[in-house]
């Protein structure tokens, strides 16, 4: 009874408004569209540089296309071929191996470095922070060239200074699978340790001092403070850095390409350090198979989406735990 009455009165009011107000002018109509116009730049740019290339790549992947000729529709052939191509799985394996070898030590090192930078007795704090970040502003190609020389077989400094004096044979870093992965991972590590340290440092400074004081009172030494206070407090930051380095690691390209030198995008004479992006580049721009390269691009895209979803669920879980 009561609810019936309310609905009625609302209906009456609405009717009155519609009767009194004249039809909207063009200006008013445009004005109501204005909010959409304000937010449109993002959508327009996203469509041109995000959605359209992704869809167009998929369309190309359904064709055989030498860029000088006409595309020829082949349906799912490229995807079927890809799934049975040992070179694709090899590149996937290499990508993950290099990601693993570079990320784990890199994050541990970054954590250690951040702890040192955060030390209260450290002088020249800003100076040190600038120094650890400097690899980040170095050109990745310069890094690749210098490190390739350091890892050189005949004239490389690493062999001369770290391998030979200890009575080992000079290592040909390019030839071995593991040794080449280590060499490439070193470049990635060198470039990204400082960046991750600063992120950890920022997060560490947000940890209340009182926690450390309490831990100190409980007799925890510096190491135990790190393990029991710092790391648990940094949990979400650590997850963030893992995600960022995963997405970066999936797309690793310049370092192994430069390391490969004259071998080009094949990544060694048995593809021992060919990553997914290198395989994509090889097929697309050295062999001119645009269709097949697009299929590789889509496989990579799906893998990254998978990781993004995994990331989403993990962070969801963590924030639930924290609440």
């Amino acid at each position: 009874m009561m609810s019936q009455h309310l609905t009625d009165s609302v209906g009456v009011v609405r009717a009155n408004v519609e009767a009194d107000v004249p039809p909207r002018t063009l200006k008013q109509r445009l004005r109501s569209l204005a909010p959409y116009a304000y937010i449109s730049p993002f959508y327009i740019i996203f469509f041109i540089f995000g959605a359209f290339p992704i869809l167009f790549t998929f369309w190309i992947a359904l064709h055989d296309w030498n860029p000088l000729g006409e595309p020829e529709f082949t349906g799912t052939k490229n995807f079927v071929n890809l799934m049975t191509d040992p070179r694709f799985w090899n590149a996937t394996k290499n990508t993950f191996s290099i990601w693993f070898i570079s990320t784990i030590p890199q994050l541990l090192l970054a954590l250690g470095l951040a702890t040192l930078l955060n030390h209260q007795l450290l002088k020249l704090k800003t100076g040190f922070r600038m120094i650890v970040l400097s690899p980040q502003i170095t050109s990745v190609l310069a890094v690749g060239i210098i490190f390739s020389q350091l890892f050189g077989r005949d004239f490389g400094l690493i062999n001369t200074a770290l391998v030979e004096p200890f009575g080992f044979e000079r290592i040909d870093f390019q030839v071995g699978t593991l040794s080449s992965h280590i060499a490439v991972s070193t470049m990635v590590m060198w470039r990204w340790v400082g960046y991750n340290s600063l992120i950890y440092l920022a997060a560490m400074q947000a940890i209340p001092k009182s926690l450390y004081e309490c831990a100190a009172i409980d007799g925890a030494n510096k190491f135990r403070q790190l393990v029991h206070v710092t790391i648990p407090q940094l949990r979400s930051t650590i997850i963030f850095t893992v995600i960022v380095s995963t997405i970066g690691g999936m797309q690793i390209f310049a370092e192994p390409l430069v390391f490969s030198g004259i071998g080009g995008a094949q990544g060694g004479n048995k593809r021992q350090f060919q990553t997914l992006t290198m395989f994509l580049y090889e097929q697309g721009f050295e062999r001119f198979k645009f269709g097949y390269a697009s299929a590789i691009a889509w496989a990579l895209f799906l893998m990254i989406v998978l990781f993004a979803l995994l990331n989403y669920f993990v962070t969801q879980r963590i924030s639930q735990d924290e609440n």
Partner: protein
Amino acid sequence: MVSSAKGTGHCDDGCLIAVGDPYREHVISTKVLQALAEMDDHNYYLTQRSARSDIRLKGKKFMNKITRLLALLAALMLIVAACGSGASDEDASDDGEAASPDVDGAEEAEEPAEETTTTQVKTGGDAESDTTLQIWTFGATGLEPLMDEWAAENGVSIEIKTSDFAAHHEGLLTALVASEVPDIAVIEVGFSSLFKTSPDQFIDLRDYGAGDLESNYVDWRWEHGVSSDGSVIGLPTDVGGLALAYRWDKFEAAGLPTDRDEVAGLWTSWEDFLDVGEKYVADTGEPFIDDIGVLYSTLGAQGGERYFGDDGSLIYDSSDKVKADFDLAAEAGVRGISANLAGFSGEWNAAMAEGGYAVQLAPSWMMGYIQSNAPDTSGLWDITTLPESGGNWGGSQLAIPAAAPNPELAYDLISTILSPENQLKVFIENGNFPSTVDSYSDDALLSFENPFFNDAPVGQIYADAVLNLDPVFEGVEERAIAEAFGNALDRVEVGELSPEEGFQAALDEIQLELDR
């Protein structure tokens, strides 16, 4: 107080367990502090704190100064670094231009690792001119001075963009698709089949009268520029005639003959060559040749059918020649006569300059490469003939893309600089052997002796090599196939695979590539 605070009196046993839970930690530690303040001797605690903060304040002022200084220093360093790197970039690209090889074949057919990123743009001719001809090259054709000369005479400005061997061709293909093309592009013979499949992307040079020039050039080099529909997409530059460069001083030290005719007499077959190499290695402990990949490319370039039949069909897996070449190169690897350097890599360049090996298989353009890469070895090299026969490795065409802005001028340039007289000039200056027939009987060529190579009569040697060769057809899939065999040889060379396994690995790899 200190001792009691360090004990677990206030926290009991709950504190360490609570760590990790921010809220509880905070509550507990606040309680601890309150308790401390309430204690009788809390003054001690406070004095300690204020004393510390005094020191901190002074320290802070000092640190601020240091920070400012450091920031200034860093800014200065960045400026210096920017200038420094700019300068070294220029150096690198200068080297790149000088060292760019004119090659194809196995995976070593590219430039040194250091130059993988080098793209260099140079302008020349009449800078005031409104018309600028864009020229894309991978260097090493030795034609740049002639281009400058032509530009100056015709009052046109030119812009020469030099990229790496592979990057140049790959970039050109993408540019053709996008119609963002230069006026003139260099196409090496290993890539010519690929570009010839799209004659509509290039200007048919017959429209400008190129048909009259055909008789000037060696017939099979002319064919490299003729597409299936008969249109002429490029004029031939040089011929990569094959010979062999050796360090006579190293031969002398090893007790081998040094005279070029006697050296040639050491080997009538490649088997002899390997025997001499093995003896050299045993006597001196030094490598004989640079790389078995370069040896393999040379063997393949000696003529006959290689990966393709005359009709363009694929015969790489059934050709006796491919198998024999592979086995011979693999044997050289197994017998340990090679320095195991990747041809055209930075380490290869260094070894060439340092005398890391005694024999360099040398297409004619390699003379220019050695001269610019190893200038200190002048006079220590000599040149003689190859075992078994001559051959061709390399050479290019100059083509004009269909969308070129200035095709008339471009044609005038290429037809001028590729004339017999000009090709002879390039040979004398840079070592690239002419592709013009008349040059082979020209006295200026036949009597030319190169002082860098111990006055070897290189004109005569390379003319003989070119006149006696049987050209190899290079098809569309040339590079994929050559790279697979080159990679397999590398693996044999380091002892990872036996020659048999290596050959099979290459066949599998090629099959995989061709199937997709």
